[in-house]
């Protein structure tokens, strides 16, 4: 082992023209050295990545706390919520005679809406893809920074601005937007229809338009960087899988978010300028509106043309991260590298042909559904290939079961469980009964909520040393993992049964209906596990922030003995990533346990007769 390390170091020293152990190159580098430009308006991708991550964590806490509050309403509808009145104020309606406090239905719907919006966009898009695309793209392809560091900085600050606007909307007297994260008009278009559709909706749209700008600035940068700034020898087919995932993700974002933005602009016109893109034949609040000819279904098409690729924008980076983490800690090449890449591409391509499977019951022509069923269920094939490849990666490995690996395995379990229920929902005939029931809630929370979070956690635990130069605590990490996986299944598994019984989602109370009101016990259990799950995430938050300052220090550059280039950079972050020259790449990223060598980093030249690809 010692011999191996020193040999690699030798190569680095030779290639880079000096030995970074003895030179503190960045001394005297004045670039962005003031506090404000180093930590706040930084253009360094490593700082921006951490900004995305920390902002994402803060939003995740807010979004998860909201879900705990509305789970209280669903699990314990008879209990008083008066204790939370200091936080929620008038949205807790206290009965003056009994003193029992109830969550106002308007605010219940506002919480559900905000929970969805925050987790989908701010946490799992910005927090996951934003963090790891920024951190890993330049480091793993061997680039000094993003193609445009300035746009990259703007990308974060537009996201920040979006967050500020959304946060502000929580405090409006009419409440934040409450029409569901999908914001279907006419509910979202008409302030008469719902109090949250007034100023709350205006701020929601403004915030998300800012967010779209952020995604587009980031995405165009990721694509350009990957296509143009790969180091010598880093052919596309030698890129580590996370980079492939980020690349396809960025393309999806670039093609789909503008469509969402156009939908939003049309919605703004309908709301403010008297147009009728989405409105027709509406009689509301005692008045017949002078709007005819529009189609509410058109908005759904525009929304889901983003909305479906969006779930892959969320899950592809997690898949990429998991592939890398799993290969490193199983000490084995990822099984079927090319199949994995083709699967990512196939999923990315198909994600544009399936959007109307969210709309089988929306009033579109039933004939159209034939195509969408077909394409939707085709996606199961590349997804299945990925699952089998992950499992085979474990087969014959030499697995370290540390926290990042546990989360990577947990991801695969979640992806299987949630993916399989997608086969029910994607089949339009079953969807007649399942559509908009708790079955759907269970499905998408497991497959794109919990699974994506697991991917994110795997990445955070794995690359934490790269980000902060210290390790997160392993014991707390394992408490976090086991607590989370058990709670997550305890929350969402029973929801399948509730959904199969036909209980609709987005119900403030189930008591009105004989068919829906007999699941009180199950709803209690779900709520209890939701609260527990929330506290297990606080263990992560504690571990994260504690370890920034007090975690175990990283002593060697490559603690996981991984092959990718980020582990050749100095422990101490420097601007430009590598002192001296950028390393040259000679092989793919997954030469683990090949030819008696435990691992072979990408910059190690080929031996005679050795093949650098796979």
């Amino acid at each position, binding site marked *: 082992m010692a011999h191996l390390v020193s040999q690699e170091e030798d190569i680095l020293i030779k290639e880079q023209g000096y030995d970074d152990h003895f030179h503190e190159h960045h001394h005297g580098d004045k670039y962005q050295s003031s506090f404000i430009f180093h930590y706040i308006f930084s253009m360094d991708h490593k700082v921006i990545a951490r900004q995305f991550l920390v902002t994402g964590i803060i939003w995740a806490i807010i979004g998860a706390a909201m879900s705990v509050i509305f789970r209280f309403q669903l699990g314990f509808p008879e209990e008083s919520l008066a204790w939370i009145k200091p936080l929620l104020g008038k949205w807790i309606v206290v009965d003056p005679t009994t003193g029992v406090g109830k969550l106002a239905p308007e605010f219940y*719907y506002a919480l559900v809406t905000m929970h969805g919006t925050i987790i989908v966009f701010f946490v799992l898009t910005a927090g996951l893809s934003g963090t790891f695309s920024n951190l890993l793209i330049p480091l793993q392809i061997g680039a000094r920074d993003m193609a445009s560091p300035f746009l990259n900085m703007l990308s974060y600050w537009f996201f920040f601005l979006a967050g500020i606007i959304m946060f502000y909307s929580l405090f409006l007297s009419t409440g934040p937007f*409450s029409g569901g994260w999908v914001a279907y008009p006419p509910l979202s278009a008409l302030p008469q229809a719902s109090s949250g559709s007034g100023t709350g909706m205006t701020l929601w749209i403004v915030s998300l338009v800012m967010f779209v700008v952020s995604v587009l600035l980031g995405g165009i940068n990721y694509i350009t960087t990957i296509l143009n700034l790969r180091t010598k020898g880093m052919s596309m087919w030698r890129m580590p899988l996370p980079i492939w995932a980020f690349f396809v993700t960025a393309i999806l974002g670039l093609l789909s978010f503008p469509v969402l933005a156009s939908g939003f602009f049309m919605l703004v016109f309908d709301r403010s300028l008297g147009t009728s893109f989405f409105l027709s*034949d509406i009689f509301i609040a005692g008045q017949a509106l002078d709007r005819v000819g529009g189609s509410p279904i058109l908005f759904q098409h525009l929304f889901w043309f983003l909305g479906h690729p969006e779930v892959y924008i969320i899950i592809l980076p997690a898949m990429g991260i998991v592939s890398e983490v799993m290969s490193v800690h199983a*000490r084995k090449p990822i099984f079927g590298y090319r199949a994995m890449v083709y699967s990512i591409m196939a999923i990315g391509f198909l994600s544009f042909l399936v959007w109307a499977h969210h709309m089988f019951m929306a009033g579109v022509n039933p004939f159209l559904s034939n195509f969408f069923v077909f394409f939707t269920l085709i996606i199961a094939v590349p997804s299945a290939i990925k699952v089998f490849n992950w499992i085979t990666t474990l087969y014959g490995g030499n697995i370290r079961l540390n926290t990042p690996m546990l989360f990577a395995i947990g991801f695969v379990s979640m992806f299987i469980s949630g993916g399989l229920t997608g*086969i029910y929902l994607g089949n339009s005939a079953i969807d007649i009964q399942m559509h908009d029931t708790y079955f759907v809630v269970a499905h998408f929370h497991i497959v794109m909520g919990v699974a994506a979070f697991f991917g994110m956690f795997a990445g955070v635990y794995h690359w934490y040393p790269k980000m902060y130069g210290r390790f997160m605590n392993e*014991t707390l990490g394992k408490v976090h993992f086991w607590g989370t996986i058990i709670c997550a299944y305890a929350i969402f598994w029973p929801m399948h049964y509730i959904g199969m019984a036909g209980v609709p989602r987005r119900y403030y109370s189930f008591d009105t209906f004989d068919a829906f009101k007999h699941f009180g016990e199950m709803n209690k259990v779900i709520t209890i596990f939701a609260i527990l799950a929330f506290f297990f995430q606080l263990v992560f938050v504690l571990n994260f922030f*504690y370890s920034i300052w007090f975690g175990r220090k990283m002593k060697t550059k490559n603690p996981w003995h991984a092959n990718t280039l980020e582990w050749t950079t100095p422990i101490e972050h420097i601007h430009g990533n590598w002192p001296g020259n950028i390393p040259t790449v000679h092989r793919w990223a997954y030469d683990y346990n090949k030819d008696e060598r435990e691992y072979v980093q990408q910059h190690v030249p080929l031996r005679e007769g050795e093949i650098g690809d796979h």
Partner: protein
Amino acid sequence: MIYLIALAIIVLLAIVLIQIGRISDLSDRIKGEEVAELDNNTTQGKAMVAFMVAFLVFCIWSAWHYKNVMFGFGPLTSASEHGFELDWIFLITLIFTGIVFVITHILLFWYSYRYRKVKGSTAKFFAHDTKLEMIWTAIPAVVMTILVANGLVAWNRIFKPIGPDQKVINIEATGYQFAWDIRYPGPDGKLGNKDYRNIIPGVNDLGLDWNDEAALDDIILAGSDKIVFAKDSTVHVRITAKDVLHNFYLPHFRLKMDAVPGIPTSFTFRPIKTTDEYKEELRKYPEFQTPSDPKDPTSPPRWEVFQYELACAELCGKGHYSMRRIVDVVPRSEYDTWIKGQKSFYFTNIRNTKYDPWKGKKLFASEIESRAVELKSDIDAFVNDNSGSVSRTILLKHIFYNTGSSSLNDNLSRYELDNLVKILNDKPNLRVELAGHTDSVGDAASNMTLSQERAQKAMDYLIAKGISSSRLVAKGYGQTEPIDTNDTEEGREKNRRTELRILSK
């Protein structure tokens, strides 16, 4: 204070957790990191297998335990014909996915344990295997093909357009914040046109177009009425919305469709079990023998109070969760009786009010028919009465004059007058006076003249039909005998009238 204590507990817990973390780090360092890693792999590997076993047992046990809420497996069988197709596809999907779920989970967690790093272990270099990859591309592809084929066949059968000679009951459901309006077509079997601009709250909530004759016999259920379907009769539901999106959701019938403002949607289905039959099926299950109100042990069992329900399944605002209607499925014969007993909305609520475009312009066959009976019975009542308690004055409801003139609107008035001719012919002893009245608009003298002339015109008609003038008197009373106030249009309208006064019988 309580918040402070909560905060203190959280801080304390955080400190405890950090200490646990530090101690475990420390003990790892004492053990040596290599040994600690291997120990950890074994513990975590065992934990993975334990989790896998517990998880799979939990999944299978819970599926068994809750099979009675899963559709198609327990009491919640389909109440509609097409529902069984869904249940079948659900079942084959469950079988395929269940197998995959169990196998992949066993492999995933077992490999994690089996191939953990132990002392002296190494990994295989196993990067790809084309044959293996072909196999597991082909298997899902084949399975998906089976599922897609089955699914689409069922889907297209469910949404097959209604054939030209297929008999269906057309009904319409309109969602609004936060309830449903249900409309039945009446005897013509056709739902009349509607337009949201016609909506007048409380008068015409659906905006039906009364100029469309198909709308006139339409039945609109009151808010608390059950929606009634006939067993084994196909129903075509036209689904519309007034304000925002709603969704017409009948969970027991496996039926769901969005209600979209401006774009009517529909769903065709056939109920196959009456409410009573469904109750009998539920009765067999122990969970349906428990009290319907968990807090009241004396309440009737759940199966007994069972009712089909209509719900909303598309977020429509703060009252979304409360849009309940009860659905009743009855045998066809009972349905036919029920539908006959329902009153047309137009004739009950709109006819001859100011919203009625046909007022004074048209008499409907049913009105002509029932009026003939009514007039005859009114006259008979007086003729046969010996107590003197029955009024001799009978309002001739269907006599109309052209506006501002004394000329008779023959087209509409002939029915009433012909009926009168018939009665006068049947009862040769009857002598009657035709009494004209006006409202108080205009001056009294000219009103007197107008009423006299109008009464005369009605008498002339009767004479022309062969009634002897000796049996008839025409008399105008002008505005002297109002039966209602002259201050409102409705009152004045009632005051303008022609009456029949029986002089001798």
